[in-house]
């Protein structure tokens, strides 16, 4: 998507357009990301997506007002307490909260990234921004142990179920490959129908309403977008939330992200 955007920007006259092609997956292996108070609420809490929310302020300060579900672990203790965090391979979304989104949060995030965690985020503006947005806080004792139970995202199909459906064609299911045609032409799931996510709403006539639709791409990102678009139109749809790698022999491997 970024090369397309860059191309459009050049077309309308921008002369110094660059593309960071490796993008977020590479960035977040070495650096933290950020999210706003509104994003924390809407992208995680409202959707009930489990996170590891770490409040790195001193315990006595945090007690006076913290975000629901936060675990206390002061910044100076993070590096020594990595073992308290869920295993790396579960890829828990970790969100670090300090007072203003400053160096305490940044240093805590860096310790976690150094320990091998990816997708470590800092709450921009810290608890101050959260309270300025008038979101609720709790007072009293914070949890001291991290309880993280990964949960499938809405519409996510179990990898085993996807494999089962992909291996035997059925009149009741339809798998759609929502990547670009270029990607799909280099290898795809046998029997799938290629409809790039960008075209999905224009090509609904080709998607039967009476079948179980399953969308996949190679990261789960586009497939999830397709899921929301078709769900809203009344389709019975699920999506594969995983990394899928293809070879040109029609073989593929699925890896949980």
């Amino acid at each position, binding site marked *: *998507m*970024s*090369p*397309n*955007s*860059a*191309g*459009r*920007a050049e*077309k*309308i*006259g*921008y*002369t*110094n*357009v*660059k*593309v*960071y*092609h*490796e*993008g*977020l*997956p*590479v*960035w*977040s292996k*070495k*650096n*933290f*990301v*950020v*999210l*706003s108070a*509104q*994003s924390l609420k*809407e*992208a*995680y809490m409202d959707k009930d997506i489990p996170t590891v929310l770490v409040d790195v302020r001193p315990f006595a300060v945090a007690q006076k007002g913290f975000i629901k579900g936060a675990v206390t672990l002061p910044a100076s203790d993070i590096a020594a307490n990595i073992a308290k965090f869920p295993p790396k391979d579960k890829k828990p*979304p970790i969100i670090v909260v300090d007072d203003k989104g400053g160096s305490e949060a940044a240093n805590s995030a860096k310790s976690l990234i150094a320990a091998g965690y990816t*997708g470590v*985020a800092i709450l921009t503006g810290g608890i101050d921004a959260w309270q300025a947005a008038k979101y609720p806080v709790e007072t009293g004792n914070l949890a001291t142990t991290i309880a993280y139970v990964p949960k499938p995202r809405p519409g996510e199909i179990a990898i085993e179920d996807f494999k089962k459906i992909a291996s035997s064609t059925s009149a009741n299911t339809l798998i759609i490959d929502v*990547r*670009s*045609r*270029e990607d799909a*032409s280099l290898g795809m799931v046998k029997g799938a129908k*290629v409809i790039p996510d*960008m*075209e999905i709403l*224009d090509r609904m006539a080709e998607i039967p309403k009476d079948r179980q639709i399953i969308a996949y*791409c*190679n*990261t789960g*990102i*586009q497939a*999830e*977008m397709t899921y929301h678009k078709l769900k809203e139109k009344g389709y019975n749809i699920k999506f594969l939330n995983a990394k899928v790698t293809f070879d040109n022999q029609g073989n593929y491997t699925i890896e949980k992200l």
Partner: protein
Amino acid sequence: MLLKRLMNIGSSTVMVFGLVMTFGQAVAQEKAAAPAAPQAKPTIAKLCTNCHQAEPGNLRGNFDGVAYQSESIQIKIDDTAEILKFDPKTLQVKNMQLDPNNPSEPLRAIKKGKEVRVEYTEKNGKKFATLVSEKVAIKVRPEMLMSTADVEKLVAQGQEKGKYLLIDARPAPRFMEGAIPTAINIPFVAFDKMVDKLPKDKSMLIIYYCGGVT
């Protein structure tokens, strides 16, 4: 294998013929009913207008099928279909991966639904294809690429000092889950709608990123 191939050819031929007939019927009906100006068919699919404009003598849409027997191709432009005759001896092809087993019928290598541009001439109201070009994937020129280290350096300086605009082109729900510090979100699909978020100074450094090579 060969049988399968023949069957494929058979079915696509039938399909194209079927539409030739309906197209012919539609023309006949139109002639009979109203001698008024025929309705102009679109020459460019909506999707293609993201980057291209309608051009005389060019069709842009999705490749639907080819019948070498009747020397015709069918192009889908949104909801309408265009049938064009061609001469296999003079037809030019561009940006195509030729099938080494069948180099004399290059159009067979085009996948159904692939975006194509067709150049044509018009004779007696009928379109005759002279060139078929497949859409090529957008390639980023090497000088446009930025490394992680480049972006880290700029982000450490901050937007003011680094004099840049970092743009996350992913869909909003993903941006919200976490983005590179100082980035703003302009999803690719919302490019036009959010064009006012781009800097007024067109020489300013703009960096796009997304979820890697998706």
